[in-house]
């Protein structure tokens, strides 16, 4: 059981690192496209970064979902395996990743709603810059309190408390 739990935790770890690499790839790719001034790339600005952020958070969330389905499958195997696997998420040092997950979800949700609004009411896209900034404010309002509570939990459980 311990070996299986370890394998599932390793899978979650690999998927996390993998989405980090993908995020880096997108950012470097955009930088190079802008430098070379070629290819189907937006001409910079906040719209381009929200496009990149939507992609990066989307791929990261699917990567986590893959791992999360595998670990939840452990519920069907029994308490022993599931409780051992879930232990990874409960380490105090895992908290930053959990906070990142929540941040990615909130951002992807808000930005997704903005995309839907632009799709169905194209005139709104004329004000895309204002929307992009409003979105950042909304994100801060939704995420900062949640991030604060979660980090406080982690600090209390850590050896530094």
């Amino acid at each position, binding site marked *: 059981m311990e070996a299986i739990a370890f394998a599932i935790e390793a899978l979650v770890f690999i998927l996390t690192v993998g989405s980090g690499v993908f995020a880096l790839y997108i950012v470097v790719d955009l930088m190079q496209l802008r430098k070379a001034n070629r290819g189907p790339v937006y001409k910079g600005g906040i719209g381009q970064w929200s496009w990149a952020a939507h992609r990066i958070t*989307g791929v990261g969330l*699917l990567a986590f979902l893959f791992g999360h389905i595998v670990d939840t499958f452990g519920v069907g195997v029994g308490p022993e395996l599931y*409780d051992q696997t*879930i232990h990874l*998420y409960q380490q105090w040092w895992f908290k930053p990743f959990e906070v990142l997950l*929540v941040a990615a979800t909130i951002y992807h949700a808000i930005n997704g709603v903005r995309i*839907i609004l632009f799709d169905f009411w194209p005139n709104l896209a004329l004000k895309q810059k204002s929307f992009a900034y409003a979105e950042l404010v909304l994100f801060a309002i939704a995420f900062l309190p*949640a991030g604060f*509570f*979660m980090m406080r939990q982690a600090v209390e459980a850590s050896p530094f408390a």
Partner: protein
Amino acid sequence: MAPMATIEQVYRKRKPKAFAAQRRPSSFEVWSWFFMRISGLLLVWLVLIHLYIMHLIGSGVERVDFAFVSQRWNSVGWKTFDWLMLVLALLHGANGVRVVIEDYVRSPRANTVVKATLYTLTGVLMVMGTAVIVTFPPGT
């Protein structure tokens, strides 16, 4: 042995019209676009509620263990909620990554291999996730 034909090559041969210069978007792409919007709007609520319950209130993820999950899955309502979220999130995510693959994996053969892998994983995980929710015995 001749190299294996890609899905696109086979499709091109059978449906040359789909590759005509002034073709309209295939109805699959239109439905996929529409599905992303509808599932996205539903997932905003499903996932934010899920995150709120699992990560924020109480002592967050610290209290999640087998007993916690089995208590939740005693309710057919939460089972339905979780299953709906599983199906929508997995299809929404897989379809999103399909679009990303079209952008970055240009070689037709690699494109086919990567997409086939994605669809296989999605299928396997859909079965695993559905099985664990549906077969979880009430009263555990």
